[in-house]
């Protein structure tokens, strides 16, 4: 048992450093590609030109500044947020299937946002994010509330089922609101996970919160590692588990709430990324969390580039792309981790 636990605690700091440094470089390059690709293809030289000498008179420059750049920034922010939220949840709940989509957080956010659309039209974006956060908290509270009623908590499988039930309830309510108030297809597109309409306003409001909560997640990453060893060991190592869990949960809710308010309830990013990262860098969350942020940003950026290229001029919602990649991945994880489910 001892040796098994020790051997499980493999970390690969070198690999992690490579991911962090190369990842940032790759992100910058990919961002340029992301700005260039779309319904109107723009060559990289023009992108560079638009960045350095913005000329309002040129349509391409306008497209780049008003549409493409905020969109690419949103991709990266959302990807990092969902991925880190997933990594923290998987670590602290020791549940390999944890993801803000699967556990009802995204559906909660979406529900609150549809409530805002219906009852408080013209709400400023700041407040929308606040409601989105409250919604994530609602979904989370429902799922983990049920879990806390059970001695020893729900098994990963049952937690996923609870998440599915809560999500279907909240989604039914959102759909009801959308249909009743005849909120047009735009809301549907937003629900489907679109980054198409992201504005500078959204980016400006979201980024300080995002950077703040990502930093908080990195600062708390040691606690996640300790919690991932199990509560008994964590207490033995002098960790105040309740406090750590509360702070971490708050970080997860903020991250999920932010991300959903930008692109809608996109699932599976938070499931896939931490698994990939753990496979590459080992089990220490001090490496997993920052690497998840980078890999999540990259993956979402590519998914969005793909979404624009699959069948132009239509946009494919990124939630669809992630669900289609994520489902086989989910099944694979469920098979692999069968012993612990």
């Amino acid at each position: 048992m001892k040796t098994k636990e020790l051997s499980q605690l493999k970390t690969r700091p070198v690999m992690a450093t490579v991911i962090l440094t190369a990842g940032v470089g790759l992100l910058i390059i990919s961002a340029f590609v992301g700005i260039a690709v779309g319904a109107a293809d723009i060559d990289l030289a023009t992108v560079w030109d638009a960045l350095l000498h913005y000329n309002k008179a040129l349509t391409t420059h306008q497209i780049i500044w008003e549409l493409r750049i905020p969109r690419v920034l949103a991709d990266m922010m959302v990807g990092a947020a969902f991925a880190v939220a997933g990594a923290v949840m998987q670590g602290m709940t020791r549940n390999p299937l944890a993801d803000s989509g699967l556990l009802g957080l995204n559906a909660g956010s979406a529900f609150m946002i549809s409530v805002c659309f219906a009852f408080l039209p013209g709400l400023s974006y700041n407040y929308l994010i606040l409601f989105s956060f409250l919604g994530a908290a609602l979904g989370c509270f429902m799922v983990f509330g049920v879990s806390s009623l059970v001695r020893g908590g729900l098994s990963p499988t049952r937690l996923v089922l609870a998440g599915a039930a809560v999500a279907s309830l909240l989604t039914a309510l959102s759909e009801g609101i959308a249909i009743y108030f005849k909120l047009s297809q735009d809301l549907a597109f937003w629900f489907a996970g679109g980054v198409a309409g992201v504005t500078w306003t959204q980016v400006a409001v979201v980024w300080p919160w995002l950077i703040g909560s990502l930093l908080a997640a990195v600062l708390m990453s040691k606690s996640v590692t300790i919690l991932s060893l199990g509560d008994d060991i964590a207490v033995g190592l002098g960790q105040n588990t309740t406090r750590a869990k509360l702070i971490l949960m708050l970080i997860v809710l903020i991250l999920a709430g932010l991300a959903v308010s930008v692109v809608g309830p996109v699932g599976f990013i938070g499931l896939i990324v931490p698994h990939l990262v753990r496979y590459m860098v080992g089990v220490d969350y001090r490496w997993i969390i920052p690497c998840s942020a980078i890999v999540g940003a990259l993956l979402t950026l590519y998914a969005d580039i793909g979404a624009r290229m699959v069948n132009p001029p239509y946009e494919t919602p990124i939630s669809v792309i992630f669900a289609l990649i994520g489902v086989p991945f989910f099944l694979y994880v469920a098979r692999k981790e069968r012993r612990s489910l």
Partner: protein
Amino acid sequence: MMGTTTERKVMRRRIYISIILALLLVSIFIFSVNAGYSKIPFVDVVKTLFGQGSAQDTLIISQFRLPRIVIAVMVGAGLAVSGAILQAVSQNSLADPGILGINNGAGLAVMLYISYFPSTLDVPVMFMPLIGFTGAILTAFIVYGLSYSRKEGLLPNRLVLTGVAVSAAVAALMTLLTIRLDPENYQVVAEWIAGNIWASSWQYVFALLPWLVVLGTVAAFKVKTLDILGFGDQVATGLGVKTEKEKVILLVVAVALAAACVSVSGGIAFIGLIGPHIARRLVGSGHRWVLPISALIGALLLLVADTIGRLIVQPSEIFAGIVVAVIGAPYFLYLLAKAK
């Protein structure tokens, strides 16, 4: 079998319960005919039902309300029986056509159909259950295949997990479709997904009826097999039941039931889960009783949900599917917390 007094008591209890449920169903049926945007007094409702009503009452009742109520009763019963069979076959009390992705599979097929033949008027409604069944059976076999292991047969836990996952993938494809629709068709499809019993015309009743009759009969003949499967595969095999073959037959019956219902009513979850659970609590676990009582309870649940949905925000409506989710999700969570 019917020797001891306790057994006689149990038997009597079951009969009482059946009678009470049937009476409940009849009274809600009458209330539901009476309830709605245009009030029709109770006396007139009864008169109309016996063909003595005024022309206007007859129109409202026979063309709008009755078919809708009949559909709700049929769909509720069908989904509940489907759930009871699925729970027995998978030996997992959390199985239900909604959770296993069968509803979504049927939904996707029907949606494809609606989007490629926008004016549903010139395509026979009779095809709807068949289309739904095609999508559902494909989905069911994918889920079944993914949760089957050569060494251990069908794994109950993996079945639900796979169902949830496949369901999500199918839902993603549905999303893709909805976004491409023009607004008019979109509204139709959105309402269908949310479980609006929109198909309230006699056409749909007749499209659904043969499916329910045939499949219900098959299910009724299989009650013994369902009981035996409950003992586990080894015991069942020992008793001379070809477990794998029977499971596949029963799965097809359950899938076909759910698909036919869903293709008429849209996405209605949880009925297939709750119906059998309540039935087992009332009459024990023998399927000879569980199936009919499940059907009664499912019919009751959906009729109540649809009636509530019609009354709560007049003159508009809330769809039955949404009402069912609001009632059903908490119950499901309660079951999750309670089950070992």
